């Protein structure tokens, strides 16, 4: 029983940890794309990777200040969004999905390749670029802090604080935007693109703006992740993360401001709880070793996410908070 409580405590930390922030920011970006505009961006992790490496390369390789790195990351995300959007946004939804997933995988392969090693550090990635930021913390970054039975280092706490601040800011931004005329046009594009075009709106431009906005939010997610872990390694930015963020978004409820945030916290909690809980069950012999060994637990999480994603889409596409009418999407 105590192990179950431990699992709960560890999972509780995951509830607020930087990974929840990372997925929340990815999912807020995807919410702008998928939830509000109806764009199928399956390469959100590429934006995050550009954000993280924007800082890492600027600081570690070019010796620029941290804040310039942030700007570089955002600029890279904007460029990627334009590059991806230009050819595909005039086409049907699934073209964007194919191109984005291809671009995300391609960029990761490019970043980890031998020829890119002088810039990106190759498979080992870059590190030691977050000192400027961590040292801004108003408390001792190396000290330990006990909060509700969980232990945090000062640096972790600082990153989490700023991270959640970012989540709040972007949630408010999305909330305000979607109440504005811009948001109404974007939602109308999701519902019926031709009708919007008939009203004289430039659908292509609106889609592009939404793609850029969501991509930039995703880039901030990558920055939080890179700063929190203190390193940027291309293989951390696997495609599966995009789909975890989709699962979080759909769990919370697409086209809802708080949907991606609550969804990410819940998803991370479930993942961490399943992870720790399964390990405890295996160690105690409740689950026989032959059926599942503790090395398989990491993969089981993805299996569960995949299954959960399917079941959610089929039986409750609106997630926890969503409105069913808003998420009955169909590719034209």
């Amino acid at each position, binding site marked *: 029983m105590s192990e179950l409580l431990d699992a709960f405590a560890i999972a509780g930390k995951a509830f607020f940890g930087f990974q929840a922030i990372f997925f929340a920011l990815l999912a807020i970006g995807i919410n702008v794309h998928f939830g509000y505009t109806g764009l199928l961006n399956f390469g959100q992790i590429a934006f995050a990777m550009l954000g993280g490496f924007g800082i890492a390369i600027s600081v570690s390789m070019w010796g620029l200040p941290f804040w310039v790195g942030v700007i570089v990351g955002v600029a890279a995300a904007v460029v990627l969004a334009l590059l991806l959007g230009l*050819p595909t946004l005039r086409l049907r939804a699934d073209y964007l999905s*194919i191109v984005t997933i*291809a671009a995300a*995988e391609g960029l990761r*392969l490019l970043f980890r390749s*031998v020829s890119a090693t002088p810039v990106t550090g190759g498979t080992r990635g870059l590190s030691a670029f977050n000192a400027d930021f961590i040292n801004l913390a108003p408390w001792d970054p190396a000290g330990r802090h006990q909060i509700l039975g969980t232990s945090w280092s000062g640096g972790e706490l600082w990153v989490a604080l700023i991270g959640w601040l970012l989540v709040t800011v972007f949630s408010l931004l999305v909330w305000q935007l979607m109440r504005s005329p811009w948001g109404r046009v974007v939602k109308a594009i999701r519902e019926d693109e031709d009708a919007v075009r008939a009203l004289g709106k430039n659908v292509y431009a609106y889609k592009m703006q939404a793609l850029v906005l969501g991509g930039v939010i995703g880039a901030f997610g990558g920055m939080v992740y890179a700063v929190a872990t203190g390193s940027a390694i291309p293989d951390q930015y696997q495609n599966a993360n995009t789909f975890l963020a989709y699962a979080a978004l759909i769990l919370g409820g697409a086209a809802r401001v708080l949907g991606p945030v609550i969804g990410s916290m819940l998803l991370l909690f479930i993942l961490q709880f399943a992870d720790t809980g399964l390990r405890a069950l295996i160690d105690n012999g409740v689950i026989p070793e032959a059926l599942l060994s503790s090395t*398989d637990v990491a993969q089981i999480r993805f299996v569960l996410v*995949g299954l959960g994603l*399917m079941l959610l889409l*089929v039986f409750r596409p609106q997630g926890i908070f969503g409105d069913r009418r808003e998420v009955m999407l169909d590719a034209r």
Partner: protein
Amino acid sequence: MTHAPQRARGHGEGSTAGRGQVGTSTARRRSRWLRSRRPLVLTLLLAAFTMALAMLMPGIASAANEAVTGTLQTSRSGPIAGVPVTVETAAGDPVDTAETDENGRFAVPVPGPGEYEVTIDPEALPDGVELGDRGESLTVTVGPNRAQPVLFGLADGTSNAGGGSVEAVQLLVDGIRFGLLIAVCAVGLSLIYGTTGLTNFAHGELVTIGAVVAWYVNVQGGIPLIPATIIAMIVGAAVGALNELAIWRPLRRRGTGLVAALVVSIGLSMLLRYLVQIVYGGFSSPYADYQTQRTVDYGVFTMTNRSLASIVISVVVLVLVALMLQRTTIGKAMRAVADNRDLAASSGIDVNRVILVVWMMGGALATLGGVLLGLSDQVQWDMGFRLLLLMFAGVTLGGLGTAYGALVGSLIVGVFVQMSTLVIPSDVKYVGGLLLLIVILVLRPQGILGSRARIG
């Protein structure tokens, strides 16, 4: 020990030119392969191999101790005797030194399993024989009770004599092989898209599952690869049918939108991919058969016989698929459903049955593609997912939803990906393929064979 005569015969009947050692268990088969290619073998590029034959060294193998063994020889010089071989532990402590005997062989017992560094003295090599790309020192891992073969790729200059390969042609041929392989996998993807409108992100997992099933039947079950592939294709067809019957048909009946279905397919892809990783494991492993083939020189390019077989099988299968689509009733029905589903249904075609057949065919073809991929690149848990992106590139390039478009597009992607290594490093070659996809979408979004109406 029963393998020794076979091996001797294999060498006797084969050519006298550059012949490495052969794996004992495949000696008979290989000698047949090589005999039929005898004139070509004579101009073989690769000059030397070394590989231990534990069974020919009873003193080492039966003593149940660990050792490193090998043979030094090239086609011109024959076996090289008197070369000092030094073995050190990974930490640099000397273990033992030996000289190669008159057959070019050496065997150094080592104290136990672990990593060892094996070094030969390049000074002692005869004139004209040089170290190959692998250098003079190799690090090997010796398993418990294993005589670990060490392979120094010695060169004797024959690679420049006669024949040889022209790099561009070589890459073109590799690209055609790879493109045909993508096409075999992607035909199903394209037909599924054409008949149901589903962009199936779980198609890569059909490839993986097929390859892994064939691996289990072949390596664990001990059944030769060809029957194992046929068994796996039947399983693959069943998996495809299960996909349709358990997931997609009920979803169509529920009226699930295409975007929702697309996300469901992503969930399915993750589910299956990581299930495969749990069951099969994270390692990459080859099939039991056809692994020790030498490349055969065809003048301007070289190719192993398994690559040649891969090309032939792909072409035959694709021609059969094309014939089926053109001539048979079910093939015509598939094209009709892909063209206009409602019209097909109203003219008496059982659409659900056609879609089921498409899924089964797609599953079986993906399996075959997976086995071919596993044969050239080994079997891995995420091989299908990595191929999926190139399949998408090929299918989109050719025109989503058209069977022939998938073929043409895949071929172009395969050739482009391989040829691009002429100018870009090979570890980013997939990026080139994906760039090609983006460029083609700018220039001709409907693909090469697609029709304008499909792109919306």
